[in-house]
């Protein structure tokens, strides 16, 4: 009886704890967010939707955000860059303080950030800077060289530049994409890029070729990409895996030359994507502990090294979750729940972690990978290893529906963040 009663009370308390996640927080809590991309903007909106009194400050370097998802469509000429550019007006309207400026210093103990020489302190600090490049990973490549051999792996001016170069390229030219070693942002991105540029070439420059020089020996959705290339762009796209001297180690920008361990190529247009690590501010604050990416709690995304400092999105180590916009949005919500529960002094119901990623081979042909995750052994692991992707041999209608779904997803997730 006694045990039963205690159990009952215990259960009641647990239920109360779950309920209070939705309760309004103390108005004094200050949340600072560095970076207004898929992680940071999603988190700011999520917190505001759940708590009207919370002080939320978003620190963002740029005046607008250009999404990496769908940026390959700009390169393929499907739409202009305005289609993937979003402003922060709506965030300001709902009472999120948006500070435009680069965070130059982060103190993870004091939870303070310096922007434009001014120090700002917070109760909770969320670091969502995305990725920065390891410029030294390819000899001869640098931020300066990126103006002649664009990476276009941070969407915006680089995307526009690469598109311009593709437009100016004569028919019959060779377009080379150098693919970095894992882990990097958006693992299927380079292959979708090849597909949509092939779509453009097929219409306007049909004698041109695309060469993928890869650091890896396999890639995500590989069979589906290969199937689509065979169907629509036979003999236009060639893929060289890392074990066949695919990895680019050096460039000579003045001559347009690209070198792997054993081979030399001359590209009409070169797209060099260097190796990556967490955004500079996270590294300088030591949140990565020297590893390049930041270890976090798999449910709350709180830093392993500093309480009340969180890292979400591409900068975090999220187990088997890839570095994607979808994942960052998902992690933002998980982190948001944890912060709201912490403010309320309660435990919380962990979020469901998912990643759904569409790749387009042409405007009416897409395929997807769907992953659910669960926390096992304190890391994020796949719930299912099988049947994650669109089946091979699916008919044209299936692929058209997936392309429609991809566009719908983009509209919905960007509305979640910016609308």
């Amino acid at each position, binding site marked *: 009886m006694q045990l039963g009663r205690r159990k009952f009370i215990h259960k009641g308390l647990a239920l109360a704890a*779950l309920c209070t996640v939705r309760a309004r927080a103390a108005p004094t809590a200050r949340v600072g967010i560095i970076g207004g991309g898929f992680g940071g903007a999603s988190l700011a909106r999520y917190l505001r*939707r759940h708590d009207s009194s919370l002080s939320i400050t978003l620190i963002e370097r740029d005046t607008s955000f250009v999404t990496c998802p769908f940026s390959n469509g700009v390169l393929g000429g499907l739409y202009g860059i305005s289609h993937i550019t979003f402003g922060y007006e709506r965030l300001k309207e709902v009472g999120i303080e948006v500070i435009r400026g680069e965070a130059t210093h982060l103190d993870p103990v004091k939870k303070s950030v310096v922007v434009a020489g001014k120090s700002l302190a917070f109760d909770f600090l969320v670091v969502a800077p995305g990725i920065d490049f390891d410029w030294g990973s390819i000899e001869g490549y640098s931020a300066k060289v990126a103006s002649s051999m664009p990476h276009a792996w941070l969407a915006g001016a680089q995307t526009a530049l690469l598109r311009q170069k593709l437009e100016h390229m004569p028919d019959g030219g060779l377009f080379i994409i150098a693919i970095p070693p894992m882990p990097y942002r958006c693992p299927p991105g380079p292959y979708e890029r090849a597909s949509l540029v092939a779509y453009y070439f097929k219409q306007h420059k049909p004698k041109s070729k695309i060469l993928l020089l890869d650091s890896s020996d396999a890639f995500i959705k590989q069979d589906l990409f290969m199937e689509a290339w065979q169907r629509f762009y036979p003999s236009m796209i060639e893929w060289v895996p890392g074990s066949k001297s695919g990895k680019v180690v050096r460039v000579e920008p003045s001559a347009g030359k690209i070198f792997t361990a054993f081979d030399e190529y001359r590209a009409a247009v070169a797209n060099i994507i260097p190796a990556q690590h967490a955004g500079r501010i996270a590294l300088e604050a030591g949140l990565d502990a020297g590893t390049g990416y930041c270890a976090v709690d798999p449910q709350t995304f709180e830093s392993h090294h500093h309480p009340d400092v969180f890292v979400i999105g591409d900068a975090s180590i999220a187990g088997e979750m890839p570095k994607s916009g979808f994942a960052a949005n998902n992690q933002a919500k*998980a982190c948001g729940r944890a912060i709201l529960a912490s403010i309320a002094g309660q435990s919380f119901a962990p979020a*469901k972690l998912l990643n759904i990623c569409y790749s387009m081979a042409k405007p009416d042909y897409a395929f997807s990978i769907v992953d659910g995750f669960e926390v096992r052994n304190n890391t994020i692991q796949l719930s299912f290893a099988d*049947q994650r992707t669109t089946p091979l041999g699916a008919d044209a209608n299936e692929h058209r529906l997936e392309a429609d779904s991809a*566009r719908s997803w983009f509209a919905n997730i960007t*509305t979640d963040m910016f609308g």
Partner: protein
Amino acid sequence: MKLQRTLMSLSLCLFTVVTVTVTATATAADTARGEALADGCTSCHGVLGASQGHIPSINQMSRVQFITALNEYREQKRTATIMNRIARTYTPEEIEQLADYFTQGLAP
């Protein structure tokens, strides 16, 4: 034969109703858990389940419709482009909690 089929579908129908009714009283904890689970759904289906474009909205369904659809996707009994793959990641209990959340029509 026809009568048998009708009876069968009627009993199936009743079974569904009964199953759903038994667990129809959602506790606040169920709804909170449902909201936590729903955070994954809204990345595709839109804020509060209101979608733009091809992906359907999921905030206008009845509880029975919602649970039936998700369970059928989960058990690979309903064809879909991707929902049959996604639904595998939810247990039947979680599907009910999601239904509690999306069918109550609340907006924080």
